[in-house]
């Protein structure tokens, strides 16, 4: 940890924690607004509990590096630097949303920060990640692709085909499995012959960065830094972060609420609590700075909701625009 404080300054660590709190409160607000039917649609997949994984891994990137993920994408988009007002507007289906109100919760993208989107066909974004990485290799621009993968996506053909292709082409991709223990409602052990998912790397002759505690920002950041360096210079890597989602698969899922003990175990190791504790250990005089975070985040969320509510809905022209170039 002492080494990490050398690479990340106090201000940067505060910023990281701020971002994790922002994601948590953003998700809580989304749930509230969904239940109040202000956010529509069928799907809302929340990132609560997984903040350390997304923020830790993205912190290891350069701004020009690429990020792509599946449909549990709110936290990833925030961590990559997408505008929170426009993210909330997308939840509301407004014209000012990052995807013009056409993508919704599962399809948040912001090309300006190289957040290539959330994708809602399980595994479907993996070959896209390989293709984006091919562009980097083809142009030799030194950028890498960080591709988040749900544990549930490790068992369809996309996973196999995309990881294998990245290996035979030596593509600069960090494949990061966010193992939150369940693919919808099915435990990993029930769906995977080899539940230690990082071991899949062996099958592709790919560098295996093992398992990391996805509830701990510092742990994720450290392994991600090494993985990014490896991907940038050598080729694709696989990491498995063990994490936990506090909500169901989607907000409509209620089965997860029966997992009381398991939930409590993970909540005791909540990413925000773990991070806050370490910040206090590192900087005994940090209390005043920590105290400013929640009010600042609350103001950001309030402003985002106001922006979303006051934004116009898409028009009939928007309906037919951007089908083709």
């Amino acid at each position, binding site marked *: 940890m002492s080494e990490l404080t050398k690479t990340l300054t106090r201000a940067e660590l505060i910023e990281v924690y701020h971002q994790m709190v922002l994601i948590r409160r953003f998700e809580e607000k989304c749930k509230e607004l969904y239940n109040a039917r202000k956010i529509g649609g069928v799907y809302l997949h929340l990132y609560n509990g997984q903040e350390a994984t997304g923020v830790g891994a993205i912190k290891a990137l350069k701004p020009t590096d690429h990020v792509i993920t599946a449909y549990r994408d709110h936290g990833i988009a925030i961590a990559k630097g997408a505008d929170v007002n426009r993210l909330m507007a997308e939840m509301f289906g407004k014209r000012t949303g990052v995807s*013009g109100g056409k993508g919704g919760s599962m399809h948040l993208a912001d090309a300006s920060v190289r957040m290539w*989107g959330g994708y809602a066909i399980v595994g479907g974004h993996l070959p*896209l990640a390989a*293709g984006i990485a091919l562009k980097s290799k083809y142009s030799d621009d030194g950028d890498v692709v960080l591709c988040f993968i749900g544990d549930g996506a490790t068992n369809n053909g996309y996973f196999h085909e995309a990881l294998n*292709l990245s290996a035979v082409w030596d593509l600069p991709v960090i494949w990061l499995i966010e193992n939150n223990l369940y693919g919808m409602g099915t435990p990993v052990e029930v769906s995977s012959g080899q539940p230690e998912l990082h071991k899949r790397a062996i099958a592709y002759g790919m560098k295996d960065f093992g398992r990391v505690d996805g509830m701990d920002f510092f742990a994720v950041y450290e392994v991600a830094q090494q993985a990014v360096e490896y991907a940038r210079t050598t080729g694709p890597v696989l990491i498995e972060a063990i994490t936990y989602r506090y909500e169901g698969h989607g907000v409509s899922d209620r089965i997860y609420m029966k997992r009381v003990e398991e939930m409590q175990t993970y909540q005791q190791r909540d990413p925000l609590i773990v991070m806050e504790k370490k910040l206090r250990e590192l900087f005994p005089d940090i209390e005043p700075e920590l105290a400013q975070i929640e009010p600042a985040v609350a103001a950001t969320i309030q402003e985002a909701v106001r922006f979303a509510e006051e934004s116009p809905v898409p028009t009939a022209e928007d309906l037919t625009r*951007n*089908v083709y170039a």
Partner: protein
Amino acid sequence: MAEKNIPMREALRAALREEMIRDERVFVMGQEVGAWEGTHKVTRGFLDEFGARRVRDTPISEMAIAGAAVGAAMAGLRPVAEIMTINFAFLAFDALINHAAKVRYMFDGQFKAPMVLRAATGWGNQATATHSHTPEPIFAHFPGLYLGCPSTPADAKGMLKAAIRDDNPVLFTEVIALYPKPGLVPDDPDFVLPIGKGDIKRAGKDVTIVSYGRGVEWSLDAAEMLAREGISCEVIDVRWLRPLDLPLIFESFKKTNRCVVVEESLPFYSFGSEIAAQLQEHMFDYMDAPIKRVSAMDVPLPYAKEIELMALPDAHKVVAAVKEII
């Protein structure tokens, strides 16, 4: 303009090669495109000329071939991916339909996917049930994707170049039986035929025959036979199933008031169904006879040549259909 008499596979090769020379972002990827020089030899000599960076052999991974092409296109390259035959493109269906065709719309114009997926199509060579599909209409069902299928070497060159230069994703199918057939092809490296523009392959006044791909050949043969009996057929090759050149079809129909649709594909929910529906919806006042459809029979394709050919459309079936409505 100088022209050469070359087979369709050479016309396609010329188009690809010229575009790779013209634009460094254009590259080819797919099964056997490199050392093997393409299953249909369209990329003959490419590995030597352009090197392994731009001529990329892939594993037999259709989902990843199509999906990686989408990603590379989104990121700024112009991939021309090859799937050996359209039969295997069913495995790439999700990447094509859910991603190639949707990324622009779903993210409201932040991304584009200027990629071409080439695939050989067609049947009639005892290839049997799983290797005999001509499923263009299925892929043409979805907005966001273009679909072209040339019937002549010149069209093949001009259409493929247009597809590569366009900012939209294109599924480009090439009829296997037409690869060796020759035709005059312009040498001009900027010979580009606009996407969505059909072509009158033979002018006539009594009946409009609408077709694409291999069906054009049967239609032209039929028109020749019918001409000897004093029946004048206008043969329209739409070239593109999407975007579809409806104005060209409508203009012809206003003149002939009769239409036969010819396709190699299956009859149910088909190309013919769409043309017939469009004509009855927009050209009802000009209609003097029912729209006839000539297609493959509604069966999977068998191995034995004798019964395989029974299921295949041909010029005689087109002649019979025309005579029913004249």
